[in-house]
Structures are given as structure tokens and as C-alpha cells.
């Protein structure tokens, strides 16, 4: 018995030696540990969420009464451009990928992602995108045309200078980063599942991340196309979007929204995964309607690519065509309605407990369903002509994105915080933060529906007292301030708990999926042995079967078959490397330089090629341990 313990400890130490990062700064720069990379992503996005919230509060103060002059129109335009671009490109999408990068290997019982260096590369490029937007802001080259910069306003004739270029290249950075992360997540979910986790026994969280990542792979090239064409128009006068040169300004809108609508679901579908995990654990039963949920996500993933025109009902396309997109947009309410039903049914048919993550789920349902229903209204082509580009739409998409994605994200943060840090968050502060954020949000955004119906357009920096919009705008500002106070409580709670929270233990909630089988926080290699599963809720159905045979003195992963997760072979997993960072620096030089001269693409390719050559330099070590087998003990 003691011999066994000693042997286990020795094994653990050898694994640690194989998977540990180098010490200090070098370790920080070279790490390929998915948990460290994801933590960076999460911290960066949370900081940007704070900045974007401050911008929002600033704009709310400007709009709190008629004819306020604290901001110039230019400053107001910069604020909403920065707020929207930050939230859509630098917070919502990356934070969902970060959650996947952190959780997917753990939920698969694996030691790392399929392409660890690609994950590091993805973060560095994402950070490049962050700097691309916010460093020019410090230099007063802030984009000032919103989060979708329609030409010709963003074209060379109406936007001289580099504000629009900064915006377009920020998107290129973040989208390359998002593609890198998504490819990684898809490959990991399809090829690194534990023995027994067939597609039919795959938890909803993994399905959500799979669908969202596939959508990213199909959708994001469109936005890169749109912004690259815009940059070409601005840099070398390609005239894609200039009517005088034979181009078409609507072309931009089509390509943009072909990405832009799926984008909403790329943000929302991961939230489906969070909510499903939380509801399952706190309702103490497997989620109701697993197959219906999976089919709903797949249906949304497909339908989302067929309804982009509902962002363009007012541009004067043929009315029969508009009706088609109305029908397609309404259809998506069916899978969304099924999902909502399944979550509530899980509570009704289970033994639910209202812990803090569950509060966020309740807030999500109450808020997101309003956003979904106002989405049904805007999906109707003739009614949308009255609603689009008004504050009704501002209310709608904040209900969808904040209610539908940020609330579940905050719930997920509270839910997995003990696993990531080994400490519990405070229940009282957690509930206080929830009440303030949820209440403030609804006080802030619900009146905007009415303002929109009272004729208040979007993106106006002020309005006259005769319009009668003052009182509700003041209410909205008060709500925003309450919400931000709640955000501060949330951050204080997270920081205090991180420093001195109660020890959490490995599985404080009695969770259902494999990440709870690891220690809290997990070691660099996540699991001593490879778990095998035979149900959707492996942590609830008796003892886990563990497999042995993966390398102990070197980094190895278990590759399994796509559909049935049959063990196929052991794969070497790469260790720490500086080359992803150097490669992303090269790419950054290329992207930033191309704002100024097209030659940057030629010269910038050289350092990128060098970095990639070293990155992929082949190594020839082979496995040294015995065959893969079920553990006998």
C-alpha cells in the first residue's frame, strides 16, 4: 500500500518534470500550457470588458439629458466605435474561445490541446489586435465609425487618415487569432476524446464549443475579406465599394453581415454550453433532452448563415427576398425555444439549488428571452423598417449579447473559478454582484426599447429637449451606473477569493463532467491517468475507469477515432517554444506595415517564414513507455 503511494508520487513527479514550464519570464513567454494561455485570454478580456464598460458609462452620461455638451461629437463617435469594436472583437468572441481553451482538454481528460503552440500563437496575435486598437487610441488615431464601418463613409474619400485602417487591421489580427483557436478546438474535440466518449456521449459544453468553432471557421473569413477589401480600397484604390469606380457599397454590407450574423451565435452558442453545464450540475440530474439540445445547436449553426439580410431590410432589396429572410430568421426561434425549454425542464425534473452560478442562469433566461422575442420583432421585414437603427435595436442586441452571453459567462466564471484557483468565491458578494448587474442592466436597457419606439435613432451624440427622450435616458444612465457598481463588486469578490478564499477541494459542486476529476487547480498535465467514460455524466455514474500507458517522462496525448473515440495511437505533444511569439511578432509587423504600404506584405512575409520554419522544425523522439491499457488496480 505504501509502496503504491510512493510509486504514484514518483510517477506524479516524473509527469510534472515532463510537463512543467521553465521558470520565470522565459516560461511566461514560451508556455504552451492551455490553462495558462486561457487564463491570459480571460484576464485580458476582463480588463477590456472593464474599459468598454467605462466607455459605455461615459456615453450614458452624455445622453443622460438633452443637449449635454460634455463630449464633442467626434469624441462620442470614437467612444461608441471603441466600445462596440472592443466588445465584439476583443471581448465576446475571444473570451468564449478562452473558456474552451481552458476547459476542453480538462473535460476530455486530456493533457493538452491538439496544437499547443497554435494556442500560444493565437493569444499573442489576439494581444496584437488589442494593442492595434488601444495603442492608436492613446495616440488619438481612434476609429470613429462604429463597429461596422460602412463604406463609403469609411472609404478613402470620407475617412482620410488612418482611423479606419487601424480598425480594419485590428479585425484582421483578432480574426486570425480566432481562426487559430477554433481550428485547435475542433481538432481537440474531434480527435482527443477519452475512450468511451462517442459523439453520442459528448457533453453539451463540448458540442457547443465544437459548433461555435466550426461557425467561426466558416464565418470569419468573410469579415477578413470585407476589411481586406476595404483596406485595398483605401491603400491602392481597388474601388470594390466605390460606386464612382464601378464598385458597390452594398457588397460590403452583404459580406459583413454574412459574418456578422453568425458572429452573434458564435458568441451565444458557447453560452449554451455554460448554461447546460451549470443547470445540469445544480439540478442534480442529466440535462433534459440531450439529443434535442444538440440538434438545436446544429440547427442554429446552419440557419445562422442564411439570414444575414435581416440586417439590411432597409437598403431597398426586393421585398419578396426580404420575406425569405424574415422566414429564415423566425425559424431560428424554434431551436432557441427548445433549448430554453430543455434547461427549465431540467430544473423542473430535477432537484435544483440556487447557488450563485444558477442565479446567473435564471438572470440569463429572464433577460435573453426578451432579447430573443425582440429579435423576432426585428426579424419581420416590414416592422424592422421602423425598428432598425433605433434604440429598440440597441436594447435588443444588448439583451441578446449581455443577457445571452455575458450573464452565462459570469455564471461560468463563478462555476469554474474553484477548479481554476482551488478557492471558493463568496456567496454573499456573488449574489450582491448578481442583483446589481442584473437589476442595473434591466433598468438601463429596458427603457431603450421604448425610446426606440419613441423615435430615437442610434448613434446620435445628443438630442433636443423637445423630443421628450430625457427622462428615460436618465433612467438608462442610472441603470448603467448600478450595473457597473455590480461589476466592481464582482471583480472585488474574484480578487479576494483568489487571494484568500476558502479552499474548494476538487469537486465543490458535485459536478458531472470530467474536469472535476482533476485536482483544483489542475497540475500542468491535468490528469495522472487517462479516464475512460461510459455515460454523459461520468462523475455521477460510479468509479472512473482509468487508462495507463501514455508517456510519463515525455509529453504525449491519446488520439482516438472521431465518431466512437476508440483509442488509435499516442501522439507526441510539443513542449514550450518561443517561436509562436516570434511568429506573431512577424505577423504583427506585416499587418501594421500594410496600413502604410502594400510592400509590407512582401517584406513582412520573410520573418514570418523564418519563424514558422523553426516552429515546425521536425524532432524525432519516440515513445518510451509500454502499451496503452486499462489500469489493473
Amino acid at each position, binding site marked *: 500500500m505504501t509502496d503504491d503511494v510512493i510509486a504514484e508520487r514518483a510517477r506524479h513527479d516524473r509527469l510534472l518534470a515532463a510537463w512543467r514550464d521553465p521558470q520565470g519570464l522565459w516560461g511566461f513567454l514560451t508556455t504552451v500550457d492551455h490553462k495558462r494561455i486561457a487564463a491570459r485570454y480571460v484576464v485580458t478580456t476582463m480588463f477590456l470588458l472593464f474599459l468598454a464598460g467605462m466607455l459605455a458609462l461615459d456615453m450614458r452620461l452624455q445622453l443622460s439629458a438633452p443637449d449635454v455638451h460634455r463630449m464633442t461629437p467626434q469624441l462620442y463617435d470614437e467612444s461608441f466605435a471603441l466600445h462596440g469594436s472592443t466588445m465584439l472583437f476583443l471581448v465576446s468572441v475571444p473570451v468564449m474561445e478562452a473558456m474552451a481553451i481552458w476547459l476542453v482538454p480538462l473535460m476530455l481528460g486530456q493533457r493538452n490541446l491538439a496544437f499547443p503552440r497554435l494556442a500560444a500563437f493565437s493569444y499573442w496575435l489576439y494581444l496584437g489586435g488589442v494593442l492595434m486598437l488601444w495603442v492608436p487610441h492613446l495616440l488619438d488615431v481612434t476609429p470613429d465609425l462604429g463597429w461596422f464601418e460602412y463604406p463609403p463613409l469609411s472609404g478613402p474619400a470620407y475617412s482620410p487618415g488612418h482611423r479606419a485602417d487601424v480598425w480594419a487591421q485590428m479585425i484582421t489580427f483578432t480574426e486570425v487569432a480566432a481562426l487559430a483557436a477554433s481550428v485547435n478546438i475542433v481538432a481537440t474535440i474531434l480527435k482527443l476524446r477519452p475512450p468511451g466518449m462517442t459523439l453520442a456521449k459528448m457533453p453539451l459544453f463540448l458540442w457547443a464549443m465544437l459548433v461555435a468553432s466550426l461557425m467561426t471557421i466558416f464565418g470569419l473569413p468573410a469579415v477578413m475579406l470585407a476589411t481586406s477589401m476595404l483596406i485595398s480600397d483605401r491603400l491602392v484604390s481597388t474601388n470594390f465599394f466605390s460606386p464612382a469606380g464601378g464598385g458597390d457599397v452594398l457588397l460590403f454590407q452583404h459580406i459583413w453581415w454574412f459574418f456578422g450574423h453568425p458572429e452573434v451565435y458564435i458568441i451565444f452558442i458557447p453560452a449554451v454550453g455554460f448554461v447546460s453545464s451549470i443547470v445540469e450540475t445544480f439540478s442534480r440530474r442529466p440535462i433534459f433532452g440531450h439529443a434535442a439540445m444538440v440538434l438545436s445547436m446544429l440547427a442554429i449553426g446552419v440557419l445562422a448563415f442564411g439570414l444575414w439580410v435581416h440586417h439590411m431590410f432597409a437598403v431597398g432589396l426586393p421585398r419578396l427576398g426580404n420575406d425569405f429572410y424574415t422566414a429564415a430568421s423566425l425559424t431560428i426561434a424554434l431551436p432557441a425555444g427548445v433549448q430554453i425549454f430543455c434547461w427549465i425542464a431540467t430544473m423542473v425534473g430535477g432537484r435544483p439549488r440556487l447557488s450563485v452560478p444558477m442565479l446567473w442562469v435564471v438572470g440569463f433566461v429572464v433577460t435573453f428571452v426578451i432579447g430573443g422575442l425582440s429579435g423576432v420583432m426585428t426579424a419581420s421585414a416590414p416592422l424592422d423598417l421602423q425598428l432598425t*437603427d433605433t434604440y429598440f435595436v440597441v436594447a435588443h442586441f444588448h439583451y441578446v449579447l449581455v443577457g445571452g452571453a455575458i450573464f452565462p459567462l459570469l455564471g461560468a466564471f463563478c462555476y469554474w473559478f474553484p477548479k481554476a484557483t482551488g478557492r471558493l468565491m463568496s456567496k454573499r458578494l456573488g449574489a450582491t454582484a448578481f442583483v446589481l448587474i442584473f437589476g442595473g442592466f434591466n433598468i438601463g436597457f429596458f427603457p431603450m426599447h421604448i425610446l426606440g419606439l419613441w423615435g430615437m435613432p442610434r448613434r*446620435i451624440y445628443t438630442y433636443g429637449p423637445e423630443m421628450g427622450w430625457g427622462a428615460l435616458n436618465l433612467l438608462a444612465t442610472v441603470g448603467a451606473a448600478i450595473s457597473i457598481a455590480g461589476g466592481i463588486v464582482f471583480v472585488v469578490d474574484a480578487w479576494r477569493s483568489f487571494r484568500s478564499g476558502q479552499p474548494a477541494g476538487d469537486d465543490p459542486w458535485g459536478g458531472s463532467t470530467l474536469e472535476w476529476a482533476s485536482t483544483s487547480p489542475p497540475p500542468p498535465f491535468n490528469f495522472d491517468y487517462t479516464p475512460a467514460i461510459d455515460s454523459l455524466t461520468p462523475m455521477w455514474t460510479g468509479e472512473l475507469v482509468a487508462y495507463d500507458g501514455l508517456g510519463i517522462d515525455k509529453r504525449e496525448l491519446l488520439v482516438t477515432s472521431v465518431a466512437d473515440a476508440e483509442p488509435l495511437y499516442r501522439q507526441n505533444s510539443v513542449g514550450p517554444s518561443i517561436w509562436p511569439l516570434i511568429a506573431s511578432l512577424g505577423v504583427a509587423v506585416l499587418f501594421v506595415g500594410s496600413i502604410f504600404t502594400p510592400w509590407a506584405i512582401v517584406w513582412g512575409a520573410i520573418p514570418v517564414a523564418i519563424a514558422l520554419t523553426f516552429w515546425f522544425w521536425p524532432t524525432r523522439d519516440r515513445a518510451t513507455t509500454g502499451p496503452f491499457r486499462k489500469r489493473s488496480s
Partner: protein
Amino acid sequence: MRSRPAIAATLALGGCSGAQTPLAPVADQAGSQYHLLLLMLWVCGVMYLLVIGFLIIGLWRARGRHAAAPPPLLEPADDRLRRLLAVWAAVVVIGLLVLAGGSFLVERSLALAQANESLRIRVTAHQYWWRIAYRDPASGRWVETANELHLPVARTARIELGSADVIHSFWVPNISGKMDVIPGRANAIDLTPRRLGWFRGQCAEFCGPQHAHMGFDVKVETSAAFDAWLAAQARPAAAPRDAEQARGMEVVTREQCAMCHTVRGTAAIGRNGPDLTHIGSRHSIAAGTLTMTRAHLQGWIAQPQAIKPGTMMPTVTLSPADANAAAAYLESLK
């Protein structure tokens, strides 16, 4: 569909001016959109109550459970919930069919209005104002005005939309939904107003720093009043009636003003800015930014960039006396 008073009371039009809202429709187009909105609110309201009711049942199950996690329920009996899911899916499908049908009918009615249009009006959007041109029935020539649209009641007017620069959106919520104004595209929108009065429109697509101040006034009037108004607009500018106005005319037609503005019947024939021939007859100035008063005219001439930072109207150095005279002259251009 008889619930109009109820909904109006609910949303109260509380602080709202009522001149720029889809909730007080005065035309066929806005009327059908308003009815569709009511249908939507009913159907979506019922759906929301169903979801929240179900959620309350779920929360009721959670009451009193704060202690440690109970053991998981591995094989729950879900037959009733499965049947309920089928019912719920059917309810959602029926609701969506109702909404899709209603939406289709309204879309069709908007398209059909084209059949009986009898008046064509050209509206050209500029950063940050609206050029509006009518065909004078007497001479057959186009007569220009700016930022003020006059419509005869109970006739369908077809607004032909063009842009001089970037994308804008034409929106008079009491009369109809939006139509974007897109460079390189010939868009049009039909308006069939049924009630007399002043209404307000505003650009609804972000078009630059002064997007917020790109409004216009809409007057729906009787056929006779409309004809009289159009005949008056077709006439050249009134001659100055006193010395100050004469000085003002001198300033407007000889100084920089004439580079951009037209005053028909004078030497001012600029085309970049609004036609000023009958500016004194208009409800407001600077695209709905200020009401039409002598003082506002004076302020606008002296300090356009202070009132509307980023407007294309430059600050022109005029002596206070000249600015006063110009304002007096422009006010007299009824």
C-alpha cells in the same frame, strides 16, 4: 386590433413629443406597421409569460435547498416533460406562422402602394441636410427646397432617394419605416399620409459627426394648401423691403454665401448647400436643429461650427452688422 388606446396608454407616449414615433401612425404605411407591432407584442408577450411561468415552476422546486448538494438523480422520469416539449414546439411553430403570415401581408401592402402614386418628390441626402425637389406643375421645372417636406393628404407620394455622399436613411416614423439612401442606388419609398399636421423625420443611418442633427420637418396639408405652397415655392425670391434687408441681400449674394447657396432671382447660384429662396417660410433651420427665428438665423450665420460642430457650413467672417442684415434678409424670404 382594437387595442390601440390600450397600447398607447401603456407606452404612454409619456414624455414623447408624438411627432416622431411609429406609435402614432398617420399614414397607411406606418399604420400597417403599427398593427404588425401590436400583433407581435401580443404573441411575444404570451410566449414570454409561458416561459416565465415555467421558470417559476422550476424555481419553486429549488425552494429551501441551500445546504449540500443532494445525490444526483440519474434516471429521472421525463415522460410528461417530453410530451410538454412537443406541445411547446407546436405552440412556438404556430406563433411563428402567425407572425410570418402577418409580416408577409404587411410587406405586400407596402409593395402594393406603388400602384396609385401620383406625386414624385426627389430627396437627396447630404452630410447633414436634405435637398428636396418638386416638379412645378405650371412650368414643369424642378423646384428646390431643403429640410422641409410637404405632402398632400390622402395622396400617395413617391419619394425618390439619392445620396450626394455617404449612406443615410430616410425616416419619418409617423408616416412610414426607413429607406436607406445609398450612393449608386436608386431607392424609393411611397408615403400615403391620412392626417394633417406637422411631423418630424431624421436620418437613421450613421453618416458622420453631425448625424444627430440631420432632421427634417414634414407637413401634411390639404391638396389646396399643398398646391398653393408649391406655387409659392416656385416663385423667385422676394425683393428686399428695407435698407437692412437690401444690405443683407448684398451680403448673401456677393459674399461667400453665394458660393454654396442659391437664392433664385439673384446672383447667388451655389449648389453645395440648401436653396435659400424661401428659407423664411420654413419651420426650422440647420436640418431641424433650430427653430426659424431671426435670432437663430443670426447665431447660425455667425457660429455654425459652435452649433453643429462638423457641419459643412464654414465660419464666415462677417461684421456683426452684416450678419444681422443677412439674417434680416433671409427671414424676409417667405
